[in-house]
């Protein structure tokens, strides 16, 4: 891929300026390796009172998979579209490689957009063009010679596993295959950034998984920065490294995915995470009482494992702290970014300690302990 990529890069883009970037980095160490940077970004649509985006300050690092999550209407789409200026911000700036893209004219914008691939929820493939022609289109409009186009399209269709289908029209493909064509089309200029706009929201869970796998693979092999928006927490969990939570156009929470998942601070994050948490079994729910009916009643606790230390939770120390008979009612641990996250719903009976002491002791072991109630 590299030989072809280098040629495309040479022909289509202004000379790469690593020196200038290195100087920028030396001048502004606080930016680190920021690939995309938003400074005080705001967007208000004409005729609307409330802004779609307000005061967004954010750095997206080179080579990371960055997630933007929020409920519908939170401003995710507007935010991701300011990166390739499909959306014009009303205030603030967007910097890509420390360069402000706000004042770009059509020529520079076209060149910028060839460095940024984008895939869409509804794929947005040209229905009148074959798979091959769809993938070829970005090269064609860039004036890439036929031979090079041929090689590049073949290579990309192979990458997404659709080389057999190149003469077919999109209408005859399944959703997952359409998104693969979309990915091939987005990567055909060897972009440094890939924007994913709800890329898996129209797909079934199995297909979602395979598309996410493909994105992860591309991120690893090509080292490109992926920015994705979604309303599904599971997508963030599966491939992102960092995440921001948007609500009404503002960032309400941000951090490493394991942090936000392990210990969500904002109500919106908690709401969005709720579908991923197993519900308490109905039988247990029915038996729970808010007040202890007797001192002997068993205490039911939800002990959350937030992944603060990288080891798997060590249970014997928890048991030693609580004392008595401990039964696991529900729970599980899953690894996110190499950290163990999850929750354990346990009942504690016949402990030598009082209920209050048991709760206190549980808190020594885990940061978050919720008292669900009491059962006899």
């Amino acid at each position: 891929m590299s030989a072809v990529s280098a040629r495309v890069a040479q022909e289509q883009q202004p000379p790469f300026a690593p020196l200038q970037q290195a100087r920028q980095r030396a001048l502004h160490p606080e930016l680190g390796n920021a690939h995309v940077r938003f400074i005080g970004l705001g967007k208000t649509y004409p005729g609307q009172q409330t802004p779609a985006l307000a005061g967004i300050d954010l750095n997206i690092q080179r080579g990371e998979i960055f997630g933007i999550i929020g409920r519908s209407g939170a401003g995710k789409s507007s935010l991701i579209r300011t990166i390739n200026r499909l959306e014009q911000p009303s205030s603030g700036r967007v910097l890509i490689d420390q360069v402000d893209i706000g004042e770009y004219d059509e020529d520079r914008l076209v060149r910028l957009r060839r460095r940024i691939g984008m895939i869409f929820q509804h794929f947005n493939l040209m229905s009148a063009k074959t798979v091959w022609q769809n993938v070829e289109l970005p090269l064609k409009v860039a004036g890439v010679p036929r031979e090079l186009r041929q090689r590049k399209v073949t290579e990309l269709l192979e990458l997404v596993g659709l080389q057999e289908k190149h003469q077919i029209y999109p209408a005859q493909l399944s959703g997952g295959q359409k998104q693969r064509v979309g990915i091939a089309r987005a990567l055909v200029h060897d972009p440094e950034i890939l924007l994913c706009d709800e890329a898996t929201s129209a797909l079934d869970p199995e297909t979602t998984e395979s598309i996410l796998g493909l994105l992860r693979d591309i991120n690893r092999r090509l080292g490109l920065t992926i920015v994705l928006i979604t309303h599904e927490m599971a997508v963030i969990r599966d491939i992102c490294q960092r995440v921001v939570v948007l609500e009404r156009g503002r960032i309400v929470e941000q951090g490493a995915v394991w942090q936000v998942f392990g210990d969500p601070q904002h109500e919106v994050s908690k709401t969005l995470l709720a579908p991923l948490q197993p519900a308490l079994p109905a039988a247990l729910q029915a038996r729970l009482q808010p007040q202890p009916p007797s001192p002997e009643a068993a205490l039911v606790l939800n002990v959350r494992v937030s992944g603060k230390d990288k080891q798997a939770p060590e249970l014997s120390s928890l048991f030693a702290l609580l004392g008595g008979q401990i039964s696991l009612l529900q729970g599980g641990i899953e690894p996110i970014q190499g950290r163990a996250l999850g929750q354990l719903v346990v009942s504690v009976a016949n402990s030598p300690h009082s209920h209050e002491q048991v709760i206190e002791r549980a808190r020594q072991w885990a940061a978050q302990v919720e008292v669900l109630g009491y059962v006899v």
Partner: protein
Amino acid sequence: MWFDRLLAGVLDTLLMVGVSSLIALLAGIPLAVILVTSGKGGIFEAPTLNRVLGAFVNLFRSIPFLILMVALIPFTRLIVGTTYGVWAAVVPLTIAATPFFARIAEVSLREVDHGLIEAAQAMGCRRWHIVWHVLLPEALPGIVGGFTITLVTMINSSAMAGAIGAGGLGDIAYRYGYQRFDSQIMLTVIVMLVVLVALIQLGGDRLAKGLNKR
């Protein structure tokens, strides 16, 4: 002799409709593209141009063909030097057909999913690329269907033009069928027109279906 006269009539009708529809096609598509892309939020946004052009199209669309034809007589004389015969009919036919077809083509172009335009912009298409590689190919089946409707409407109009001296099947039906009460001629012309329209419709439908990959 009757056969010759009918054949000449068919050829005249085809010539009138053919020439004016060709011009309407060549002028109507750019007109439709301008109408769509200059509108609010369009890729070549130009509200004033859009309004003026839209008003102009509406003006010509609202005048009945019979009146338009008579009103255009001085203009026709200026262009082709005569107000009689096939070529004189081409002028009002073209002027009536172009806005008609442009409006139909406009609808097809407008139906192109905005997401496709967004995708094209995101992949680094210039605005002309979007017109050429996205809008026109995606709207093509609809444009072909619209052109079929335009052709049939123009055969209709050409018969009207025939009545005031343009020649063609309408002229034959009017002079021999209506003025001389020759119902046999009238019937023959009707059958020929029906066959002509059916052929055009069939051909247009087939082409549009073949082009539609959705």
